[in-house]
């Protein structure tokens, strides 16, 4: 079947197998390998992307379901001149990543979370991130990064 999807502002049409998952479409058809696959049960959140601004686990969405929709992946977060998005910058500032494999999904989930909860407290951040697993950081610095971004109100952009 043919799908037309706008990814990070670029619209393309492609023929895909009907069983193609959005994550495979993004990685293999669109060549955007920043979105990682960490499990096969929608548990880890490594593949989180934004579908019309809301976070979804792209391993649980068919490419067909994204037909006509707008997707944002980690590759679409930094500015064209290479300036990191405030969430990315906060991750760096607060050492919120180690191996980096969960990081793209974390960043996308946080972007969606902060849109809905612009001024969360620590408990709300932790609840908000429970769909995204990290094995390296113990979450401490990820939480610090999220709280710092929300404090600075940098997400209005």
């Amino acid at each position, binding site marked *: 079947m043919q799908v037309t999807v706008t990814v990070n502002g670029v619209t393309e049409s492609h023929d895909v197998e009907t069983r193609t998952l959005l994550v495979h479409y993004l990685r293999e058809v669109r060549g*955007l390998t920043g979105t990682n696959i960490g499990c096969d*049960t929608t548990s880890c959140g490594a593949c989180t992307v934004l579908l019309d601004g809301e976070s979804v686990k792209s391993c649980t969405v068919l490419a067909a379901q994204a037909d006509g929709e707008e997707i944002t992946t980690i590759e679409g977060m930094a500015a064209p001149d290479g300036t990191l998005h405030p969430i*990315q910058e906060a991750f760096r500032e607060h050492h919120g990543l*180690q*191996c*980096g494999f969960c990081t793209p999904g974390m960043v996308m989930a946080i972007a969606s979370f902060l849109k809905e909860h612009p001024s969360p407290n620590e408990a709300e951040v932790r609840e908000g*991130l*429970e769909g995204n*697993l990290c094995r390296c950081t113990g979450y401490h*610095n990820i939480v610090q990064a999220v709280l710092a971004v929300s404090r600075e109100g940098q997400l209005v952009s």
Partner: protein
Amino acid sequence: MSATVTEDTGTGGVVGTRMRRREDPALLSGEARYVHDIVVPGALHMALVRSPYAHARVTSVDVSGALGMPGVVAAFSGTDLAQEWGSPMPCAWPVTADMQAPPHLPVALNEVCYAGDAAAVVLATSQAEAQDAAGAVAVTYDELPAAVDLEDAAGDRVLAHSDLTSNRAYTWELTPDPAAVERAFDGAAVTVKERYVQQRLIPAAMEPRGVCVVPQPFGGEYVVYSATQIPHILRTMLGITAGVPEERIRVVAPSVGGGFGSKLNVYAEELLCLALARRLRKPVRWSEERSEAALATIHGRGQIQEIELAADADGHLQAVRVRLLADMGAYMQLVTPGVPLLGAFLYHGAYDVPAYSFTCTGVFTNKTPTDAYRGAGRPEATYAIERAMDALARKVGVDPAEVRRRNLIGADKFPYTSAAGLVFDSGEYERALDAVLELVDYQGLRADQASRRAQGATRLLGIGLSSYVEMCGLAPSRVLASLNYVAGGWEAATVRMLPTGTVQVVTGATPHGQGHVTSWSMIVADKLGVTPEDVEVLHSDTAVSPLGMDTYGSRSLAVGGTAIALAADRLVDKARLLAAHRLEVAPEDLELSGGQFSVRGTPSTGMTIGALAFEAFTAHDLPEGMEPNLEASATFDPTNFTFPFGTHVAVVEVDTETGKVDLVGYSAVDDCGNQINPLIVDGQVHGGIVQGVAQALFEEAVYDDHGNLLTTTFTDYLVPAASEVPSFSLGRTVTPSPSNPMGVKGIGEAGTIASTPAVVNAVVDALSHLGVEDMAMPVTPERVWRSIGAAAPGTGGGR
């Protein structure tokens, strides 16, 4: 609880500062490439047909069904591939001369020995086609009884391999003075005897494994991309096992998404991709799925521990005696049998103990092989002694902090020769204990605990301590030899300056999240007087870094970082000679500061190291006998391990009506010697703590009676999320190590080593007034609730 972090411990340069990581922009932007991200045109995708039985005879394998499927290029049984192997899969640590190690082939020939053992392999033009076709391979299994339970397996009721006469792989003993141990127990006023189960754990690095082998058939060479911690060891082992000349193999570990020991191995899939790329003369790749990883990637822990303490009436330890059963799983992987030995010297913990006995029996079972998992042997040892110390405190009737204080090795005793035969390098153990007790307001917590108990509260407070010392910086080659390890423990480095004055560092250490690029460039920047951004770190590719022993056992800084520092010192020595030649002064009259060699007393006369690099490159005017270019190499093999230490305190709330445990606070004071980058140290401690908490409260690889693994996904193997752990309060003391010139120790595993017993001690502490003295891991609400009911009927819990 908010974080208190250590201040920068700057030395005037960048070392000791909380420099932000140089790795991050590529990882944060999606630019980083993991194995799965590497595009190789024409690659065939491999899928394995894995045994659904824990133990079975393979009576036939018919691949014809798969060969007719769309996209399928080839399919092979174990017999079809038998000629591919120069030797069985490697075990580098035969701990005793008579150790049993059943031959382990990447695809089994006629007997599968765990659920997940491969019986056939399929190659197709896409991963989906390969997986579809794997289901069409017809394997006939004749199921055999399975050895599942560890103690049952040790009794040989059922044999894990039909050609073994016993499941016992080896027995390894360390009892330097048996008579002293006997005397101590005979004369002890107080003894403690405890039995603990170290449940099996699934390492669960967020990136599953992946391999891609690209052959160059006409040149006879192979590029192996693998999500591995050990490209150098892997190259050697692939060469031996697949019968490929080692120099024809180039191993590249691109971005690697965590390892924790699980990628410190030589796996069947790596060998298969290589052998099949050779056979078909095409690239072959494999991407592990999460549920496959649960079966096919090594597990950690898996021990039954019996620990006995002998003490005087005041709780001063006189002897420690330990007997272990260690679950090897079905086969010996790379260092499977040696994992318990890494803890064998540490069951007396951070305490001054005059007599010591340790015995371990390794046992085969029909389960996924075990091997090194974050801490490898040392978390198990620390768990046993720290749980037992709390039992001793209860028996003697003193506070857990006090029983530790009475036994910690005194600061005046270093270097301390332990009864187990190690020399602990340096330490101020009591200072770390005092620091963390102050950090958590220990007396305040005890008062809160007492008041909740007095009020009959249903949310009880528990405070758990864990004082630890660990041995890391895995290293001294001679010591490793004495333990029958077949490789060395050195690390190699090269530092070179390029003509424009920038620097390349080549290291054999292989990062997979540790921030090596940042730390190594900080070390070299200070040595040469350049900025960290001027330093490029080359690693994880055997074509670029041909010599190395890779990353595990918290060795990278203490061994690999030291090699880099030594190489940088040699480069500076050469630059000094060149500067002396060009400035026409004696080398000893030059001082290096801020990247400039200047004549002492005449600071205006000098040359920058960058200018010297260019002079060394043009080689127009070098001193007699000096070779062109500024480049130096060093290989460091320390004479001793390093011994980080500290004390952690966990605070839990236990709901007596539901059994639920909430970890509400966690504080740690660690001492890893001098720190290169405290920001990175903090991160290692945070992550380490949660990995240990995970064992205490959440994670277990559960098998049924038939040897089926029941926890193959993240919905039933409970890796903790952010909502299940608190923020941490960290402190640090600094006791430099004399084992290396930078005085560093290592921090990659300390958090995991310390935190598991702290948390379980806290749970037992919360309930001790009810008579609860033990708690099995993981501490589930059901276990807590039943324990309360059993110890104190009518107090809330049930049976």
